[in-house]
C-alpha cells in the first residue's frame, strides 16, 4: 500500500497529462479532440478535489483540530481552480485559441503552485498525522479518484 503522498502525487501527474493532451489538441485546432480531452481532465480534477474535500481534509482536520489551517486554504484554491476551469471551457466553446492558451497557462501555474504546497507540506503532514488510518484512507481515496488514473 502506498502512502497518501504517493497516491495523491501520482494522481496530480495523471491530471497534468490530461491537461497537456487538451492543450496540445487545442493548439492543433482539433476542437473536438480538445473538448474530449478537457472533459477527461475536468473529470480527473474534480474527482481529485472531491476525494480531498470529502475524505482527506476532514480526516486531517479531525486528527489535528485544525479546521481553519492549510485545508481551508486548499479548499479556497479549489474554488479558484474550478472557476479557472470554467473559463477554459468557455474559451474552448468559443474556439478562441489565444484565449484558451492564456487561460490554460494561468490554470497550469495555479494548479502547480497548489500541488507544490500539497506535495511538499500537506500530504507529508497527513502521512505523519494519519499513519494509524493510512491503509483505510488510501483505499477510500483510491475509490474516489478517476479510475483511468490508476496505474
Amino acid at each position: 500500500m502506498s502512502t497518501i503522498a504517493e497516491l495523491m502525487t501520482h494522481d496530480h501527474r495523471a491530471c497534468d497529462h490530461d491537461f497537456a493532451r487538451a492543450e496540445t489538441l487545442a493548439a492543433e485546432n482539433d476542437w473536438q479532440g480538445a473538448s474530449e480531452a478537457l472533459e477527461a481532465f475536468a473529470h480527473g480534477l474534480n474527482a481529485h478535489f472531491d476525494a480531498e474535500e470529502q475524505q482527506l481534509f476532514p480526516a486531517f482536520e479531525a486528527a489535528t483540530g485544525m479546521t481553519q489551517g492549510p485545508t481551508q486554504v486548499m479548499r479556497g484554491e479549489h474554488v479558484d481552480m474550478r472557476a479557472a476551469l470554467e473559463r477554459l471551457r468557455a474559451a474552448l466553446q468559443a474556439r478562441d485559441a489565444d484565449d484558451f492558451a492564456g487561460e490554460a497557462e494561468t490554470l497550469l501555474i495555479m494548479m502547480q503552485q497548489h500541488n507544490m504546497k500539497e506535495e511538499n507540506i500537506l500530504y507529508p503532514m497527513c502521512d505523519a498525522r494519519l499513519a494509524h488510518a493510512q491503509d483505510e484512507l488510501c483505499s477510500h481515496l483510491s475509490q474516489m479518484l478517476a479510475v483511468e488514473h490508476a496505474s
Partner: protein
Amino acid sequence: MSSANPGLAYEDTPPLSAPLRFFLTAPLFGICAGLVLLFGDGVLDSRWTPGALAAVHLLAAGFMLQVMIGALQQILPVVAGVRVPAVLGVAGSSHALLTFGATGLAGGLAFGLPDAIIGGAMLLLGGIGIFLIAALAGLIRSPSVKIASHAPRDLRLALIGLAVTAVLGLALAFAIGRGASLPIPLAQAVDLHAAWGWLGWGGILLAATSWVVVPMFQITPSYPARFTRWWAPVVLAGLVSWSLARSTAADGAGIVLGTALMLAFGAFTILTLRLQSRTRRSTPDAPFHAFRAAMLAMLAGIAALGANLVDDGGQWSVLAGVLILHGGFAGAISAMLYKIVPFLAWLNLTQAGIRAPNMKKLLPDIPVKQQLKLHLAVLAALVLGVFVAAAARIAGLLMLIEFGWLLLNMLRVVRNWQRARET
C-alpha cells in the same frame, strides 16, 4: 496562523510588493552592466579589468541576487513550508541594503574607490544577512516532515552557499580596499569566491528550483530520485574539498576536484535538457526555449572552463564568465521572471476578489519572445567581444536595450495589474 502549527506558511501569500520591488530593481543593474561595456575601455580583455569586475558584480550581486532573493520569498513558503517572518520589513531593509551595496561595490570596482568597495560589500553582507537570519528563523519554525522531494533541503544548502560567497566577498573587499592580508593568495581567494557563488549558491539554487519547476510546469518526467538525492550534497562536499585543496596548494587534487565539479554541473544541465526534450506540452513558449538555451550556454561555459585548465590564455575565463553569467543565469532568470511576475499579479487580483486577466493578457507572448531573442543576440555579441574588443561595445549597447526591455515588460504587467484593479 494557528499556534498549533506555527510553521505552516502558506496560509497567507507574501504581499505582492515584497518580491516585486526586487524584480523591478534587478534589470537596472543589467542596464548598468551594459553601460560599463559600452563606455569602458577593453572591458573584456581579461577577468581582472575594472570594467569586467564591475560588470560581473552588477550581474551577479545586482541582477541575479535581487531576483533570487525576491523569488525565494515566494518559493520558501510554497516549497519548503518556511514563512519568512516580518516579510515586508525584511524585504524593505534587505532590498535597500542589496541595492546600495551592489551599486557601491560595482562603482568602487569600476572607478577604483576602496571605500566604496568596502562599504558596498558591507551593505551587501548586511542585506544578505538580514534575509538569511529571517529565513533561518522561518526554517526553525517550519514543520519537520519527511518528504520525497529534495528541493527543500537543497534550497537550504544553497543558502549556505550564499553565506560562504558573501563572507569570502567581504574578505576580498578588505584585501583589495585596505590591503588586509589573506591566508591564501588573492587570485586563489577570488577563485574560491567565484566558485562558491557560481556553484554553491547559484548552481544549487538553480538545481533545487529545477527539481520542482521543470517536471511540474513544463510537464516532463521527474529527475531521477537517485540524482536529486545526491547531487547537491555531493556538489557542496566537492566544493569544500576543492576549496581546501586550493587553499593548501594541493594542485593535483584541486584539478581533479575542480574537473569533477564541472562534470557534476554539466550532468545537471544535460539531464535537464533531456527531460525538457520529453515535455508533454506541445507548444513550448519563448521562456521554455530560453531556459533550454541557458542550459546550453552553461554547458558551453563549462567547456570554456575546461579549456582554461589546459590553456592558460586569459580569454577562456572571460568567455566562461560571459557564457555562465549572462547566457546561463541571466537567461534562466529572465525566463523565470516572465512566469513569476504575471502569475503574482494574477494571484494578487484573484485573492482581492477581482476578475483577473489571464497570464497572456497580463503579459503578451510577442514582446517576451522578442526580448528573449535579443538576449541571445547579446550573448553572441559578448562571445565575439571576448575575441574582438570593438564587439564588446556593441554587446554593451545591446545589453542596455535587453535589460531595459525586460524592465518595460515587467512594467507592462504592473500597468495591466493596475488597470484591472481600477476597473
